[in-house]
Every structure is written in structure tokens, then in C-alpha cells.
């Protein structure tokens, strides 16, 4: 932890962000002896900072810098300044994630080939395949400790009340439902304890049973003496030389002083809003549209997941909160079957909210009040439900841009996020709502509440991978097409969203990227 590198040391890899992508990349490089500085905008937290309290943790760890969400979607009127629900701190969104670790399906790397041109969407195949990523998925599952996988041999968590209710509904309508493969220990593993089911996965795992780079990759990297993490360091600009190679990163430290850290390689891993924002903010006379943006795709194709919630009320108690947050998944509709009326698939992820968040999300926005809402909240303990998580079509006009006049506390233009449904998203969500109704009706639900989307924790696509430089921002290694020593290491690389939660894929890509960076450095190609 005490390693300090010189600002003028130009032999370092500078990694921006310490979450699933950045934290993993730092540790993978450190284990190979490659030195890096990790610049993290947020501060360092300890496990004792993690309280089992939804709103306290929301205000403590969320990324709450001002953002504008615009567009005709309901989300923009319900949450005009909170498009995404992400974390600012060492460990990034791996503090907040529910631990769901699923591999992409083969077709999800080939959405263009599978479905042809989709009108109104900007769909593209990934330049890599499932087969190519499979060994890295295995390594990621081992690293993170994913239960229910061959990679760890660790058992599932066992069926919670919440799981049992939804699984029975799924059984009655003939839908496949399984316990979730979670990166949450069910045995002592990797120096971390097994889950004791506090039910607050989203608030930071108090006991560290859930994988987070905060207390796995980051301290392991620091222990090698090859990694220096600088918390409370907000990146202002990535600098480059006359040849167009990046040379360093200008950032504001915790006291507001500007520092320039020289770099041999820069890897951007600030999640899908901040990463393109940094590239756009780094525009120069040589790159007037921002770094790595010859394609014009930086900040475009912003994908979340096609999302929504469904919470049914029953006559008898479910106690859904006495469970891992995501105890199981209904997989029935995860495939690509256009006969359903939409392309791509979705998962129904059994997921509980506490009463405080349920009151905020059951019917969010201005009109969420009155007897209907309060009667349902009075039935909180009799609720079971899930979060719909489906493939989101890449649409170029769903994007991140810079506000023309408004600046944040660092003097940087505020990001403007435009996001609305593609017709495929709407059809998919309607399909999911209808199947959910049947599922819950089959076990005697008294009322089925259909919740709109809430701020997205899955943010993808704004620096996407492409075979050809004109179609995207980075190549098959996450290396920018335009600038060879500039990498993207987070979910903004995703060419399509898949239906699965993004973290496992981000980690697999980061492990693979570290191999590539090490190889290229050895060959002096970087």
C-alpha cells in the first residue's frame, strides 16, 4: 500500500477507475510485474462503513455528481439527474453489485449476424466470440469465486423463501428457473467468509463474502508493490504528443491541485458514462472530436438493459428480504427467438428491495402516492418479485454528450445522457410483463405490480468494440483503433448488451486485456 510512483515516471500504466475493469486490470498487471497507478475519483471505504441501510448507503457511496438524463422515457422525468445508479469509491460499482455472474450466450456476440439489420438500431457483431472468451470466463469465475460453477466447485446458496415462491410460479407455467451463480462465497474461500445472508448486497457486503475489487484485486495488487492507488483523484484530461500517442493523465487530487501523471499506457475504466466523457473532454487540436473518436462512436450506443420490475402480493408472508438479493433467475426467455415478437432475450432476476427502496421504486416519480401505493407497501412482507433484465438494442442516438454550458465542481462539462426505448425494447418489456403476470397468477397472486425502469447499474456500449475502425472505438483487445497505447477496460467496450449482468464479462475481458498489454509491452509494441 505504501508504493509511491513519481509523477514523471513515464514507464507506468495509468488506469482510470478501480471497479470490475480497472481493479482487475491493475491486479492482473501487478501479478505479471507490470507497474501501474490507479486513479480513482472516489475515496477509500472500509467494510465497517457498510451499513445495512438503503438510503444511508445510497448517499454514502453513490456517484452523485450532477448529470442530466433527457429524452422521452419515463426514467428521464422520474430521475432527471440520476440516469445511473453507480458508485464513487475504491472498488467502484463492485461494492454495489448483487454478485450475479453469468456468461454471455454465443449468439449475443453475433447479434448482427443472427438477426440481420435491425431498423432504427446500430447493431454490430463483437470482434470476439464466446469460444474465445470461454477460458477467460473460467478464470474470472475462479478469481471472483462464483458459486454453482465448475470453476470453483462451490455449492449454491440454497433455496430462500423468495426463491421458492418465484420458482414455484415458474414451474407452474413451465419456465426454467435456477439458483443464481453468484460471486458470493458459500464457503470460506480466498480469505473471505461465506455469506450469512444479510440481504444487503446492494449496500456493500458488510462481511466481504461478495467479491468486490475493493477488498480483493486492489489490496492484492498493492501487496505486490507494483500498484499505487490514488483515491479522490478526478481525471480532467488525457494528454497526447504530436505523434498522437497518449503521454499522461491530468487529474485533480483531493485538495483540488492539478497533477499530471506521465504514462506509457492509459486504460480508461470509469464506466459507460465517465469513460466516454473523459475521451470527449480530452479533445485537442489534433483530435477535435475527442480522443479515439475517428469513428464518431465515442459516447454513442449507450445501452443499459431493457429493464423493469414485477412485484406480486400474496395472502401470506414471503419475507423476501431474508435472502441474498438475487437468489435465482428465470432463464426461460433468455434465448434469441424472434417468434416471441422481439429480438434478443431477457432474464427475470429474482431480486428484493427493502421497504425504503420499494417505496421509492414501486411507482416512482411525482404520481407515486395514494391508497394503491400505500396498500401495496402495507403488504411489503407478502411480496415476491423480480427485475427484468433484457438485451438492449444499440441505438446511436442513445448517447453521452457534454453539456454546452453547465460545468461540475471540477470545471468539467456535465454529461448529458439521452436514453429511450428502441421498439424492440418496448416489445420485450411488454412480453416480460405478460409472462410475469401469468407466472404470479399461477400461484395465487392477489395483485401484480409492474414497475418501470429505475436508474441503471448496467451501463454499456459507449466505447464499443468493432472489427473495423469505422464502426467502433476499440478493437478486440479493448485497444483504441486510433491510439495504440490507449485502452478501454470497462463495460463501455461492449458491442451488445447481452441479457446477462455485465460484471463477469468485464472481468473476463480485463484478464484477457492484461495478457495482451503484457505481451505488447514485452514486444516493445507499446
Amino acid at each position, binding site marked *: 500500500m505504501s508504493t509511491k510512483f513519481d509523477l514523471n515516471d513515464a514507464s507506468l500504466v495509468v488506469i482510470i477507475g478501480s471497479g470490475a475493469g480497472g481493479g482487475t486490470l491493475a491486479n492482473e498487471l501487478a501479478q505479471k510485474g507490470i507497474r501501474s497507478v490507479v486513479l480513482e475519483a472516489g475515496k477509500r471505504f472500509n467494510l465497517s462503513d457498510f*451499513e445495512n441501510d438503503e438510503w444511508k448507503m445510497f448517499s454514502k457511496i453513490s456517484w452523485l455528481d450532477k448529470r442530466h438524463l433527457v429524452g422521452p422515457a419515463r426514467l428521464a422525468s422520474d430521475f432527471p439527474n440520476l440516469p445511473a445508479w453507480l458508485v464513487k469509491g475504491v472498488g467502484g460499482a463492485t461494492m454495489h453489485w448483487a454478485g450475479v455472474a453469468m456468461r454471455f450466450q454465443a449468439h449475443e456476440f453475433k447479434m448482427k449476424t443472427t438477426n440481420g439489420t435491425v431498423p432504427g438500431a446500430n447493431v454490430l457483431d463483437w470482434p470476439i466470440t464466446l469460444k474465445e472468451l470461454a477460458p477467460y470466463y473460467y478464470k474470472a469465475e475462479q478469481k471472483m469465486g462464483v458459486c454453482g460453477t465448475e470453476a470453483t466447485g462451490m455449492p449454491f446458496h440454497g433455496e430462500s*423463501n423468495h426463491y421458492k415462491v418465484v420458482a414455484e410460479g415458474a414451474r407452474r407455467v413451465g419456465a426454467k428457473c435456477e439458483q443464481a451463480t453468484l460471486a458470493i462465497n458459500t464457503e470460506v474461500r480466498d480469505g473471505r467468509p461465506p455469506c450469512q445472508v444479510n440481504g444487503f448486497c446492494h449496500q456493500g457486503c458488510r462481511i466481504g463474502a461478495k467479491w468486490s475489487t475493493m477488498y480483493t484485486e486492489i489490496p492484492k495488487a498493492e501487496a505486490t508493490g507494483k500498484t499505487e492507488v490514488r483515491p479522490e483523484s478526478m481525471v480532467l484530461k488525457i494528454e497526447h504528443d504530436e505523434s498522437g500517442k497518449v503521454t499522461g493523465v491530468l487529474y485533480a487530487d483531493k485538495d483540488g491541485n492539478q497533477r499530471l501523471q506521465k504514462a506509457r499506457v492509459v486504460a480508461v475504466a470509469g464506466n459507460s458514462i465517465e469513460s466516454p466523457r473523459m475521451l470527449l473532454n480530452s479533445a485537442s487540436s489534433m483530435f477535435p472530436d475527442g480522443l479515439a473518436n475517428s469513428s464518431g462512436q465515442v459516447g454513442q450506443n449507450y445501452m443499459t438493459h431493457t429493464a423493469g420490475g414485477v412485484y406480486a402480493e400474496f395472502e401470506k408472508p414471503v419475507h423476501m428480504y431474508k435472502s441474498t438479493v438475487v437468489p435465482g433467475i428465470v432463464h426461460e426467455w433468455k434465448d434469441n427467438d424472434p417468434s416471441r415478437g422481439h429480438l434478443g432475450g431477457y432474464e427475470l432476476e429474482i431480486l428484493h428491495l427493502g421497504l425504503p427502496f420499494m417505496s421509492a421504486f414501486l411507482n416512482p416519480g411525482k404520481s407515486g402516492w395514494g391508497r394503491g401505493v400505500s396498500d401495496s407497501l402495507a403488504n411489503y412482507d407478502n411480496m415476491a418479485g423480480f427485475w427484468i433484465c433484457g438485451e438492449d438494442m444499440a441505438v446511436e442516438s442513445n448517447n453521452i454528450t457534454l453539456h454546452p454550458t453547465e460545468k461540475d465542481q471540477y470545471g468539467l462539462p456535465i454529461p448529458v445522457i439521452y436514453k429511450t426505448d428502441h421498439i424492440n425494447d418496448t416489445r420485450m418489456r411488454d412480453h416480460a410483463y405478460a409472462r410475469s403476470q401469468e407466472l404470479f397468477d399461477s400461484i395465487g397472486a392477489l395483485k401484480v405490480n409492474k414497475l418501470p425502469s429505475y436508474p441503471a447499474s448496467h451501463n454499456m456500449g459507449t466505447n464499443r468494440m468493432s472489427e473495423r475502425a469505422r464502426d467502433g472505438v476499440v478493437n478486440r483487445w479493448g485497444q483504441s483503433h486510433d491510439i495504440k497505447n490507449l485502452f478501454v477496460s470497462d463495460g463501455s467496450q461492449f458491442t451488445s448488451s447481452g441479457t446477462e449482468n455485465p460484471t463477469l464479462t468485464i472481468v473476463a475481458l480485463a484478464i484477457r486485456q492484461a495478457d495482451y498489454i503484457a505481451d505488447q509491452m514485452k514486444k516493445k509494441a507499446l
Partner: protein
Amino acid sequence: MNKNNKDLPQSISADKGNDAVCLNRRRFLSKTSRCAVAASAVVLGVGLFAQNSYAANKIGSQANVSLLKMARDIYPHDNLADKYYTQVLTPMIETAAKDDDALAILADGAKSLDQIAQQQFGMHYIDIKSEQERVVVLKQLESALFFQNIKGALMMGIYNNPELWPLFGYGGSAWEKGGYINRGYNDIDWI
């Protein structure tokens, strides 16, 4: 249409659960039920503050009663005592007593509440007997800062109030109790 529209205490008494939370809920409820009875005994003139008190005079006697009614209409839980609504509104009124802008938002809001009620139902908001009709009035104020401030404070004050969590059957913080792995992880038998 919710076929499960039991109010809180009824759903509690129907609850056959036997874990610690349920026991707490019952104890809690017997307490709040008494409060509710006491509150409903004073039907007329019940307000946020004692009549003619400083605070009641500050916001006006009509607002004093209509704001409490409004709060109960926003998140109606019939057997929840007035004090749970009052304790959310009190800090807002206290702020208003020191801040003219905040006072104006509250006082003007309460005034428009009565204006709309007068126009459409020919009486004060507080005198409209039907909840449905009062909701018609509130709906027209829904977008106002006045309404949203109160709604937001109530959401936090009722559903984020640890004192009330047992009543709703929510467990709150669990890590210090060893989580739920041995405390009801898989204890329902009706499915």
C-alpha cells in the same frame, strides 16, 4: 385493483408467522392501535399543532388541520397514528417559521388546496368526506413543489422509519444479528 387491500393491523393479525419479527410486529401494533383509537376520538379540529399554539398560528389554523389530512391522504395507513405523519411535517413547519420562502410554499400550497376544494366541491379540503374526492383535489396539485416536498418527506418519514419497519414486516439491519442464514432463510410452508 388490489384484492389484498388489508390495512396494516389486519394483515398483522392474520399473520400466522412465529418468528421474532412477527412477535415484535404484534407488540408494536397493539401499541399503535391504541394510539389510533385515541387519535380518532378527536375527529374535529385535530391538527398538526395544538390549536392557538405558536406553530398553529404561524401556518394558519386552516392549514394546520388540512396539512395533516393531506399527509394522511398521500400515504394512507388508516391505523397508523397521526404522530407518525405529524413528526414528518413538524420539521418542515419549523423551517417555515424561520424561512419566509418555505413558509410561502406551505401557506400558499394549503391555500390552493382549499381554493380547488371550494371550486369543485364547495367546501374546505378538510370537510370533503370522501377520500376519492380529496384525491381529485390533490391530483391537481401533484406537480407543485409544495406537494412534492411533503410527499418526499413522508416517503422517508414513514417507509424509512426504523420504528415502523416491524409493522411493515421489514427486518432492517441484519449483519449484527448474524444475517438470516439461521433466522428464517427458508421457513415458509404455504408454497
